[in-house]
């Protein structure tokens, strides 16, 4: 199915957030995720079901002031 990851379209096979992260190569523990604007905890990624057109944000620590 097609989902939007960090504003870019991706075609993925898995149907959970956890599976999508594995597939897309986001294996670092230093990422946090939000699905359609709502935070999804690390513990809930396996249960978070994806649907066509979902917007996934994968964030990491960056320089900031």
């Amino acid at each position: 199915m097609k989902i939007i990851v960090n504003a870019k379209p991706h075609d993925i096979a898995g149907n959970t957030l956890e599976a999508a992260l594995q597939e897309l190569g986001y294996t670092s523990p230093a990422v946090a995720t939000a699905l359609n604007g709502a935070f999804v905890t690390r513990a809930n990624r396996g249960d978070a079901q994806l649907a066509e057109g979902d917007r996934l944000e994968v964030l990491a620590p960056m320089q900031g002031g």
Partner: protein
Amino acid sequence: MQIYGTDITSRLLLGTAQYPSPAILAEAVRASRTEIITVSLRRETADGSGTGFWEHLRQTGCRILPNTAGCHSVQEAVTTARMARELFDTPWIKLEVIGHCDTLQPDVFGLVEAARILSADGFQVFPYTTDDLVVGEKLLEAGCEVLMPWGAPIGSGQGLRTPDALQTMRAHFPEVPLIVDAGIGRPSDAAQAMELGMDAVLLNTAVAKAGDPAGMARAMAMAIAAGRAGYKADPMERRDMAVPSTPVLGMAEFA
């Protein structure tokens, strides 16, 4: 100084953005002797650059104060704060809800609302706010135990635009830790903030964009220490007219 029950010795909080290199950032952090550094969350790239940066941060040994920089709505700020809490394993959040693209001034209405939501959710909120007293009161009511009024627009390096307002804040909130956040350009600006009785200064661009960031970090730390010492020593009142400092009594008469 105590913030949310944590003892803080250094009165300089340092941002981590815009340094020429990670090595220079690390050098500036060391030179500043800061205990608290601010960081943000951004989209992770395929090469995992955020993970590398996280390692650099850990090596500094500083406490992490994550921010919600760039968030323009309550919902964005709240979601970002929740992601930051998981990522950095801290209840601290520097809450920014930006109201205007050009001035980057806080949307104080959204700020109070987000502060209320996050405080109720167990966060310890450091709100980036204006020097407005009523907004300050609302933030305290919302659960904040520290206020971070701006000195001047973010990244402008203008110094304190409204020192009188900061002084009024000090008088109005005698027990609340006040941290000037944004607008500091030079060590004298930081010293002035501390002389007014601010508890600490948070700055980034002034150090990161200096020709010698580590040298400027050191200078800022000294200026902050000097300003604080000056405040504690209770400066004299200003006078409109000259008053001789040498005694007049006992002067010789030659005429």
